[in-house]
Structures are given as structure tokens and as C-alpha cells.
């Protein structure tokens, strides 16, 4: 049984919000995800909430598993119905994955946030704006929430597909923003220029959707992860602006 956070007085709502967010995402994952599409959006959500601390290897392996280039349990165990393995094994696989990747990432994220999480001493007893269940921002950090939304939108846009070529180049601008400038390289130009790429991005057939999922796993999620790491780094610097601007002492 999980202890409801409402049972405690919340002096540090930022950390509680983080905790609740991650708990909800883990609960959903434990039951198995409904589609590969959800696996991608789910990974995007948990990436922001662990401030990019999930192992880079996960993002490297995912597109290869989706393509069938690499044999792995992650996709098969995560998405219901499971192909080729029984439900019990899939359930164990998911549990293992959470322990291996999310627990330590959560720990890192927590350690990062705890130094700058503000304590609201007066607020715990009263109903007020700091109550964790009223928080919409990721770990109460507005910039993280903003980028969470940008990333979710850019990802969904890709998975839904586009109507015409012009939409693609507008979307690429969104990707740069959503990845906090981390997305770069020739692939972005190729997507507009290459006829096959345009067909994939605008097509409505199942094979087009699958190709877009692979593209999302290959190009968007790793860059989103990097972007969030950079963003969280800067966010911390802003919070600590006063001490940061002071030059280090002579040892």
C-alpha cells in the first residue's frame, strides 16, 4: 500500500510534486502501456521528470529495438499485447526496467532538486498555492513545465504526421526549441529535401506511422533528453544567481 502524501504536511512542495509525478508514471508503466506510441510519449514525460537522468543507453537502444535491429525486452515487455512472451515475464521485465533505470534516475533528480527546493514554513497547515496537489509545473519549475509541453507537442505532431511539406519545416523549428537547441545536423535538412522522408512524414499508412515512431525514438527523444539536462542545469544556475556571480576564492 502506498502512503498518500496528503497524510504529511508538505513543507517542500517541489519535491513532493516530483515524487507524485514519477509515482503516477511508474504506476501506469507497471500495468503495461497500451501502444508503442504511448511508450514514446511516456518516455518523453518521464525524461523531463527525471531531468534527463535516465541512462543514455536506453535512448540509443530504443530505435534499434523498434526497427528490429536489436533484440531487447524493453519494447516487447512495455507494450501490451506482448509479442512472443507471456504476460508474467513481461510484468517482471517491466519491474526490472523500472528498478534499473527509473529508480536511480529519480534519485539523481531528487538530489539535484533538493538543494534548491524552497521550504515554505508557514504554508504547510493552510490551504495555499504551494500545496503539491495544486502544482501543475514539473517539480514546480515553470521552465521545465514549459519545455515538457513543447516536447510533448513536437512529439505528437510527428507521430500524427503532416499534411504538407511546409508544415515539416515549421515543425523542425519547434523541435529546435523543444530540444533547447540540442537537435541539429544534416537529418533536419534531409527531412524537408528528401522525397522518401517527406512521404514518410506525410503518409497515413501503418508503415509510415511505424517509420515516424522510429524517427521519433532516434532523433527526438535523445535530443530532448540532452536539452532537458542543459535546461535543468541553467535553471539551477538562475536560482543560485547570487552565489554563482561571486567568483571562486583563492585556494
Amino acid at each position, binding site marked *: 500500500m502506498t502512503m498518500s502524501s496528503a497524510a504529511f504536511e508538505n513543507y517542500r512542495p517541489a519535491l513532493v510534486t516530483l515524487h507524485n509525478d514519477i509515482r503516477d508514471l511508474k504506476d501506469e508503466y507497471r500495468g503495461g502501456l497500451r501502444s508503442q506510441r504511448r511508450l514514446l510519449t511516456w518516455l518523453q514525460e518521464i525524461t523531463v521528470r527525471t531531468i534527463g537522468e535516465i541512462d543514455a543507453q536506453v535512448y540509443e537502444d530504443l530505435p534499434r529495438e523498434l526497427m528490429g535491429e536489436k533484440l531487447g525486452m524493453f519494447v516487447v515487455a512495455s507494450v501490451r499485447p506482448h509479442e512472443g512472451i507471456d504476460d508474467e515475464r513481461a510484468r517482471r521485465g517491466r519491474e526490472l526496467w523500472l528498478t534499473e533505470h527509473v529508480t536511480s534516475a529519480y534519485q539523481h533528480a531528487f538530489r539535484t532538486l533538493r538543494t534548491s527546493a524552497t521550504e515554505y514554513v508557514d504554508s504547510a497547515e493552510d490551504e495555499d498555492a504551494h500545496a503539491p496537489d495544486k502544482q501543475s509545473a514539473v517539480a514546480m519549475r515553470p521552465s521545465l513545465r514549459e519545455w515538457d509541453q513543447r516536447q510533448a507537442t513536437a512529439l505528437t505532431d510527428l507521430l500524427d504526421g503532416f499534411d504538407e511539406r511546409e508544415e515539416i519545416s515549421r515543425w523542425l523549428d519547434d523541435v529546435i526549441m523543444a530540444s533547447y537547441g540540442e537537435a541539429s545536423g544534416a537529418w533536419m535538412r534531409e527531412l524537408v529535401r528528401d522525397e522518401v522522408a517527406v512521404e514518410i512524414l506525410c503518409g497515413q499508412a501503418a508503415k509510415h506511422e511505424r517509420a515516424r515512431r522510429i524517427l521519433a525514438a532516434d532523433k527526438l527523444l535523445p535530443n530532448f533528453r540532452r536539452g532537458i539536462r542543459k535546461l535543468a542545469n541553467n535553471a*539551477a544556475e538562475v536560482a543560485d544567481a547570487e552565489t554563482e556571480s561571486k567568483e571562486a576564492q583563492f585556494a
Partner: protein
Amino acid sequence: MSSIDWSTDDTADAELTEEILHQFDEPVRTTYQATGNTSRWSDARSMRETFGIPAWDPDAFEYEGVIPNCWEHSWDAGGDLIAGGTDFLARGKPGKGKSTFGNYIAVRMLEANDEKVVWRGSTSRSEWLPLAPWTVLCLPKGVDVTVRLESKDPTDPAAELDIDQLERIVREVRRYRDPVDLNRNHLDAGQFHVVYPDPQLRGCQEILDKDPEKVYDTPPERDTLFHESDPANHWWFAWALARVNHGPHHWTTWICDEIGDIAPQSARKDQFGTYQKVELLKDLWVDARKFGLSIFLFGHSEVDIHQAIRHKIRWRIQMPGTANPTTSTDVVGFETVPMNYEMTDEFPIGKALMYNETHFDPFRWKDMPSPTDYKLKIEVGR
């Protein structure tokens, strides 16, 4: 017999040698350490004035356990602080200020603890030259020593010096017999010493034999671990053991640039017993702390240094230009690393990050330029 004609016209004549010597600052012989007159400035003060180094201020740092605890040595530290000698490993790529920082930390040790500072001299390097005017240069007795001044521009002629001319560059040249003689009769509190090892390793095996607890395999076809055919830098292992076992146990700091040359990760049980000597250094580490010997190591990267040694080092310094580790897997001997972010890759030269397992603190050091482009190359013959 050499079949090659090594003679060359590229050696500076007396006039040019004089000119080169003039580029060096005059040795400082007016301080308390040089004259014994307590009303004079100390060496540390004199160095600080020359380079504009601010006085040591432990209160400037947020975490007492990181920089102040490592710098200030005390027999009775109290609290969570570590008593006795300390150690650190500073890691950084070439040209990122390691050697300058080595000079800087030498000044701090003289200032904060009135320490005997020992700089590991080596033929190919003379990064200690900024401190040359205050330097007591210790060379082995009874062996040939050749001294050359070589320009950074290798096409310029080099100058050959007599040993006597060395005292135009450094305060004093002393000759020691063996490690015990060096420690007991030639090192002085509050002074900066550059020590060149004895390539004949005289007395080294005897020092090891005197310690019944230190027993190691001897290299194949030899009865002793130390032998005159060993690389000269193996002398340092015996020196450290002599310092720990036979004192005197005044605060002593060993500044060891390029530790990877002495205790490389690749150390094996070779014909010189390199691995056994690395083990010896590892085994005496705890006693070094107890007997007030601080060991400050500098290297290019973590993996340059044998892991047995890395396990023992309690502080790390990340020099600028390379990212600090964020996980403990990158730091042998640390269970945790306090940093969550990579910071030091964007630090400018002159700023670095020091950390232990619980906290980290950034700090700066002063540039300490050498007055000349010439390097001092001291070769000690066998």
C-alpha cells in the same frame, strides 16, 4: 663506446650563457629561512609578495572539509575533519595549469603549515622554475651532474652550466647521500626543496630491509627489490618509506607532478619490480598520514595512475578543460561523488574544482609565470 659524434656547435659561449643566466631572477637570500633572522619575512611571505598571492583564508570556503581540511594540517583536527597528512590527485590535460597550481600549492603549504615542501625533480621537467629564487636544490652526492639551460625554441643554442653556476638560479645546492640523510640533514621547515633522485638508489634496499612488515616478491633473477639498475624514479618509493619510518616527522609535503611516470596503471611485476613498489607506496599511505607526510599528486587522467594508489586518495581536484565526473564509477576509491553536473569543462584556466565524497568547492589560483623561456635540464649520471 659510442660510434656517433655527439659534439655540436650549438652550445652557447660564455657570453651568451651569461646573458641567459641574467634572464633568471636573483636568488632570494634575505628571508628568515635563508638568514635565520626571525625578524625577516618568511619565504612564504616573500613568495606571496612576488606573485601577488592573497593570504590564506580558510573562512572563504563554504565547506571546511574540502579545501581547508586538505590545506591546513593538524595533529588534532576535531569534528569530522581529518588529522595528520592529507593527499589529493589533481587531474587535467597538459597546459591547463597543473604545474602552476603545483607551485601555488607549495607556497600555501609553506604559509599555512611551515611545511617542508619536496618537489619531485625530474630530468625532463623544470616546472618549479617560478620558485627557483627560493629553492634549495638537493642532488645526490658523488655522481656526475650535467646542467643545461635549454630554450623553448629548440633551434636556439643551449647553455651548459657548472654546478657552481646553479646558485645563480637557486638559493642553495645541497648534496645528499641517501634518503635518510636527505630527510634528516637537508630538508628545512618552511622551505621549498627540489629533489633529484639518486640513480644508484643507494641505501634504498637497506631502508626496506629495516621494515619487517614490508615484504614483497623480488623481481626474477634478483635478491633485492631495489637495485642500482632500477629506473631512477624508483628512488622515490624508498624515500617515502624512509620519511615515514625514520622521520623526522615534521610536516612534509611531497609534490609529485606526473605521478603516472612513477606509479602507472600499467605497473607489472617486471624486472624492476614496479608493481611491488606501487604496492609498497600503497601500504605506507596510511602511515604517511599518521606521520604528517602529505602527498599531492598531479596527472593527466584518473587511469594514468595505478588504482591501488587511487583507492587511497581522499581528495580530488579537477582542473579546467575537462568535465568533472558526476558518478562514482569514474573515481576509484569514492563511493559517491557530490557533483550532479559537469562544470569544470567550462572553467577558465586558473579555476578548478576540489571535492571529496561529500562536498565540492570551486577555487582559483594565481598565475606564477617563470621569468624566462629557458628550461633547466639537470641530468644525474649513474
